[in-house]
């Protein structure tokens, strides 16, 4: 299990990809990554997202068991390069971050 660093500072060009996967079956439609384009949010909202990512990164790694759902996060810079990733058990995800996932647009 990799130990992720704290997330880099979000800038307007940052793009966060989120996918919720795992569970008792793998449904490609439900696991499809979603994107949050930071440019579309205010500085205050970016700050809120930054705090949630930092909280998620401090959560303990995936827990024991089977068929748990996981949230996979990856942050891309303005050139689309992946600069940070994190996979955590859904139970450890801050509920407000799951709300961001719920409202993020699907990559289709």
């Amino acid at each position, binding site marked *: *299990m990799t*130990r992720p660093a704290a997330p880099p500072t979000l800038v307007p060009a940052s793009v966060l990809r989120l*996918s919720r*996967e*795992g*569970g*008792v*079956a*793998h*449904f*490609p*439609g*439900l*696991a*499809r990554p979603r994107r949050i384009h930071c440019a579309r949010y205010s500085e205050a909202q970016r700050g809120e997202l930054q705090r949630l990512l930092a909280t998620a*990164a*401090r959560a*303990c*790694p*995936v*827990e*024991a*068991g*089977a*068929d*748990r*759902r*996981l949230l996979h996060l990856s942050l891309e810079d303005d050139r689309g390069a992946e600069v940070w990733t994190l996979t955590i058990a859904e*139970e450890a995800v801050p509920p407000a971050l799951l709300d961001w996932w719920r409202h993020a647009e699907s990559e289709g």
Partner: protein
Amino acid sequence: MIESTSPRIRTFLPPYLLERIAGGSDPRLRECARHTLQADHGFRARAGAARLAPDSLRRGEPARYIHSAEGRQELPGRRVRSEGEGDSGDPAVDEAYHGLGATYRLFWEAFQRHSLDDRGLALVATVHYGQDYENAFWDGSQMVFGDGDGELFNRFTIALDIIAHELTHGVIQHEAALTYAHQAGALNESLSDVFGSLVKQHARGQRAGEADWLIGAGLFTERVAGRALRSMAEPGTAYDDPVLGRDPQPGHMDDFVETQEDNGGVHINSGIPNRAFQLAATSLGGPAWEGVGRVWYDTLVDRRLAKDSDFGAFAELTRDNAAGRFGASSREAEAVREAWRSVGVLP
């Protein structure tokens, strides 16, 4: 996988080690260790309560305890039905209770196994977990079932084979403890499907040729274009739906899926060993738990089955166990070998 912080595993981590990590220099590990120490205290408190949830002392009889999370995401929740108590009138509670009973019965009657650890360990399940929660899982020490969202999924206790699937993860944890990633993880998943399906067939008194070989039939609402979560007979055909997507399971090594998703495709490539089991069982006929099921059980408890086994290693062990139990030139041994060839695992 997926190690390090379940209550059951926690008890294996000596407190002095946790204390040392908690005093170490990596801040994140330090915090996790502190969290584990705190949870350990919680677990000890639960161990106190567990005196009221004793293991079964009589071989052949389960000890079941059903809890309700009452819509929260807290485990185990409030206990609502204990071993020997009558129906509660709550379908999720009663389905879980009877589903655990049917699973215990298959393992006992077919394989003389006394619960998860063969020593009568209490069977603990929680229903009504979370809000609109569309999943069921094994948390390392108990089973957890959501109510579904009602849009795509019904409550997860509705399918007996899903209850048995989750319980089988507990049996595997006590035996081979197959690593939950890539091929070993797909074997872990496949074994849970195999015994999940066997529990359903055993409860219905079905022979291999009469079974539907579907996993999780009844879970989808009528809005979903699909029959079940998986098909052991025809992997990749269980659903094809605008929201869920298309069933991604392969049924042959030629179509093996290399992916980082889903812990390296554990619920995807399990289609291959699932189909091998189904082919062997239907070619033999009769109750599947007596012939091929016995061989798969012997393999599950075989000390030679390593944590990181791949499909080939597992297939060789099933061949060896079929020969050991039924004879090297038996119909069973032949059916097992032919099935693994058909799915491209053995040459």
